[in-house]
């Protein structure tokens, strides 16, 4: 008996070691390319051409400086544009999705079931399939090279709506709303001053996801933005890709990629605990 228990324990340890080996391997797979990216942002063009290295160089600030001041590539304005579009999207999407969820959660009205069903049905429709009509309409409305078509549509975000509604069911007691009504608060004030603060954790998670989604978005912005001073980072990356690659200073190429990737990684690492638990709240619904 004792013997078998000990062998069980040995087996378990072997199994555990095997798990960790595979986990470390997968982690390296995830991190390797970012490590190379980081190293190459610190090396000068001739250094990078010379070959592979795992040790950082000394050209980080030179590369940063030259990519930000590159005359052919509006990196600084691209960075600013990306920050603006992503922030506005995050604010609009979370505020109005919470409002929509509150409408369905807190009120009884005739078309409630229909409205909810409708939002659920449109949830899976990808934006790309209506891109043709979208781009034509925006052209007719004179909104080419405007940020309105990239930010305002996030007011109608079915997935965030659904997440907020799920969260409300467990976190927002209607007694609280009733009490505020008895105190004479108007509906709109109740939403802004009572509901929003309670929803803060959910709003934070969804704001991050919306920000990242808008930051990374490429398909639609590429069809709408063609003026240099309006372009966002993904479009600049595509532009860099289509230019004759070898003519470029590789230190700058890596630096531009890093500018697009590292801010997200840093924010993610700071907030990862909230984010990872947030995914599962929303993810089962897509």
């Amino acid at each position, binding site marked *: 008996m004792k013997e078998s228990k000990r062998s069980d324990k040995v087996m378990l340890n072997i*199994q555990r070691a095997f798990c960790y080996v595979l*986990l470390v391997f*997968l982690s390296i*797979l*995830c991190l390797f*390319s970012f490590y190379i*990216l980081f190293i*190459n942002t610190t090396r000068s063009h001739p250094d990078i051409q010379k070959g*592979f290295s795992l040790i950082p160089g000394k050209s980080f600030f030179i590369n940063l400086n030259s990519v930000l001041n590159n005359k052919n590539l509006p990196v600084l304005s691209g960075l600013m544009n990306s920050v603006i579009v992503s922030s506005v999207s995050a604010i609009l999407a979370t505020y109005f*999705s919470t*409002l*929509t969820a*509150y*409408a369905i959660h807190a*009120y*009884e009205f005739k078309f*409630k079931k229909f409205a909810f069903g409708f939002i*659920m*049905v*449109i949830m*899976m*429709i990808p934006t*790309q*399939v*209506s*891109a*043709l*009509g*979208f*781009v*034509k309409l925006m052209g007719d409305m004179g909104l080419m090279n405007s940020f309105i*078509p990239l930010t*305002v*549509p996030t*007011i*109608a975000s079915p997935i965030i*709506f659904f997440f907020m509604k799920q969260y409300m069911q467990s976190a927002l007691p209607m007694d609280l709303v009733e009490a505020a009504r008895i105190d004479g608060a108007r509906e709109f004030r109740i939403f802004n001053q009572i509901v929003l603060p309670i929803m803060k954790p959910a709003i934070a998670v969804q704001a991050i996801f919306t920000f990242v989604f808008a930051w*990374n978005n*490429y*398909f639609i912005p590429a*069809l709408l933005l063609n003026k240099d001073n309006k372009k966002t980072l*993904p479009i600049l*990356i*595509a532009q860099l*890709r*289509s230019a004759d690659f070898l003519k470029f200073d*590789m230190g700058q*190429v890596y630096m531009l*990629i890093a500018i*697009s*990737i590292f801010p*997200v*990684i840093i924010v993610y690492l700071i907030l990862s605990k909230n984010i*990872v*638990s947030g*995914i*599962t*709240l929303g993810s*089962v619904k*897509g």
Partner: protein
Amino acid sequence: MMKKKSKLVSYAKWGYIFLIPFFVTYLIFSLIPLVSTFYNSFFENYMVGLMKVGPKFIGIDNYKAVFLHSELLTYLKNTLIIWAMGFIPQIFFSLLLAAWFTDLKLRLKTGAFKTIIYMPNLIMAAAFSMLFFAMFSDSGPVNNLLTYLGLPSYRFLSEVAGTRGLIAFLNFLMWFGNTTIILMAAIMGIDGSLFEAARIDGANSWQTFKRITMPLIKPILAYVLITSLIGGIQMFDVPQILTNGEGNPNRTSMTAMMYLNKHLFSKNYGMAGAVSVILFIITCILSIFVFKFITNDPDKIKVKKKKKGGSL
């Protein structure tokens, strides 16, 4: 009594008012464009140089052209192949990791690993692909490393398997962490007493996994499969950047969305409309399955509740 009734009626008004922003926005920025896309698919409307041809109503001729004279079916096949090349390892590793992470006997320290494997999901696909393009180019770091190790170099982006493999690998990297966490939540939603009973009956890990875990998370596996397939049809950023929109070598890595994008850019609105409608219909058919999982699956609701309280 009277008063209470009138109160209820007056609140109903606010329900409608609060729904206005969503529905107005949806109407303008999604519904009208969708209808207009359908409408445009029945017209001949394209550019020859700077000259505009159409719009002229031609019925279903665009659809005929798409099916008979275009390469859409080939590109759909490419999309499906690349998706499968990424999805098979994705579901394999996700299931394995989810089972390990939730195994009470193993008691692995998982926090940091979860953080790391989820990270690629948030990375800008365009930048990630550009990074891979730089790393795997003929004289890039990876080939340098291969030479350094005394191995033959490989022209990743000139070979069918190399290019498709890189796209699939990127898709795998970006999604396996996400899938792992969804499956973990599903496994943690299973009634713990079932695992306890299995343990008392002397079942080993594999038996427990096969007989209890797998059957009970089947609906969520199906959900993961179909949402991934819907995402697969939208595959665009990675192959577009990696191959500069060409789908090289020889268009073997051209996806359906890249084809749509090509028509949109060249302002061939008739064909773009027809391709959009076809992709819309495919997505709708797949979505019906997802919709079923979300709306009437009691197990799912249990999972959701568990997750909220759980210490993920």
